[in-house]
């Protein structure tokens, strides 16, 4: 379970998050939607402990990630995975080595076992045959899929996806959505998916939350969000230029 309580974060006196409250129950998936540059990636980084909030706390299974230290923090992080918006692949390692890296460093698997696991994972994201390439040699969409594979190979219990399908063609985007859903079913992880894929995402998550003006404006089932009367959400999910949200 992920619980975010009254979270504030600002950069150089520019407030980005202004009191976020959010809760994702065990085994559920939540889609986080919201305008570009409004702090979705920052929120994910705070949840996984890469950034410190100015105020407020993040509870993962009732443990405050900001207060954990040493072994306990390590154990908690090992249960979590994040797919960064830019992939964050290690550019000195090949695609194969990137996916094998967490296995080599964190498990006691044998080399042959690692090899099988990585190849299976690569096939799953549709990248068999690219294992010897370096991140600089593959396309943006391929990087996204490698990052996804690197995250899922560790079977995390809590996964944060930062725009896993942005920049992919519609077919691969759909395939990735399907992959995430299948993994979710088999591993039963708790997930937050930051996405701009509206309305495609609505059919694959349990809940949707909209981030607006540093707060969670609304949170509910996809049906509730889709049929809401709230003018801000209505404008955002239908991509209308006229309405309360202005693009500055």
């Amino acid at each position, binding site marked *: 379970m992920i619980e975010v309580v009254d979270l504030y974060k600002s950069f150089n006196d520019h407030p980005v998050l202004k009191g976020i409250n959010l809760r994702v129950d065990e085994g559920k998936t939540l889609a986080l939607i919201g305008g570009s540059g409004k702090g979705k990636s920052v929120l994910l*980084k705070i949840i*996984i*402990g*890469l950034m410190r909030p100015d105020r407020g706390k993040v509870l993962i299974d009732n443990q405050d990630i900001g207060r954990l230290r040493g072994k306990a*923090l*390590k*154990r908690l*992080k*090992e249960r*979590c*995975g*994040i797919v*960064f918006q*830019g992939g*964050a*692949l*290690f*550019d000195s390692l090949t695609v194969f080595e990137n996916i094998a890296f*967490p296995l080599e*460093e*964190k498990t006691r698997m044998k080399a042959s076992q690692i090899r099988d696991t990585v190849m299976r994972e690569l096939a799953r994201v549709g990248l068999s045959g690219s294992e010897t390439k370096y991140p600089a040699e593959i396309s943006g969409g391929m990087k996204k899929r490698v990052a996804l594979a690197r995250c899922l190979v*560790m079977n995390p219990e809590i996964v944060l996806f930062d725009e896993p399908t942005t920049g992919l063609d519609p077919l691969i985007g759909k395939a990735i959505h399907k992959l995430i859903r299948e993994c979710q079913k088999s591993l039963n992880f708790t997930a937050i998916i930051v996405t701009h894929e509206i309305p495609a995402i609505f059919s694959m998550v349990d809940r949707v939350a909209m981030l607006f003006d540093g707060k969670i404006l609304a949170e509910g089932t996809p049906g509730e969000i889709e049929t809401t009367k709230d003018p801000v959400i209505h404008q955002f999910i239908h991509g209308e230029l006229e309405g309360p949200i202005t693009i500055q």
Partner: protein
Amino acid sequence: MNWIFAPFKFFGSITHRFIRELGRMGCFFAESLFWMAFPPYLMQRIVRRIHFIGVKTSSVIVLTGAFTGMVMALQVYYVLVKFGAEASLGPVVALSLIRELGPVISALMVIGCAGSALTAEIGIMRITEQIDALDAMALNPYKYLIIPSLLAGVISLPLLNAIFVTVGVFGGYAVGVGLMGISSGTYFGGIRDFVEAKDILEGIYKSLSFGVLITLISCYKGYYTGYGAEGVSKATTQAVVLSSVTILVWDYFMTSILVT
């Protein structure tokens, strides 16, 4: 009234920045030392870092070492002739290489070849979130990036220094014996008589400490780089300038302590 306070404000902010920077670097170093005490020890990464520093620099070291030795012999010869002491060319060249020029110039070469590359590499890993990715996998970035570099610096600098000095002594030999006609026996005999173990130790202590300083500053600047390509380029420049200056200043203090 503002113009009265402006200079105070200016120097105040510079001093403040300097002290803050020093403090942060101290913390960075302390944290590295702290994590060094715990396993795992990533031998493979250390070896790869030594390769990174050593291979990048060794050809440059050989080249600069040879010419430094040669020019030293040339300069010193003309001075020594005035005193009729050209026989002591060997020890003068060897001592200045061993105690001073070897450690300092090889350190400067390492800064140019490997230190800057280290800052750029770690800086790019920072801005492309690779360091965050390590952290998110519950792997300690100090263990994977910083400590191997620090150890590799400590190990490879004395070795590079040794290559530099050796090549330099033979460069001096080429000029002194080959061009100026000093006998080979005089050149090496003088070196044997006058170079003591403590001279060599001084050179080793110096290059050990330079190894720590260079890699520490380079890693630190990369680890805390600013955003974007501009941030990394700034960090790289700062790392090169700061480590060069630090080396020369530190060298003075090392010398004054070791000589007395």
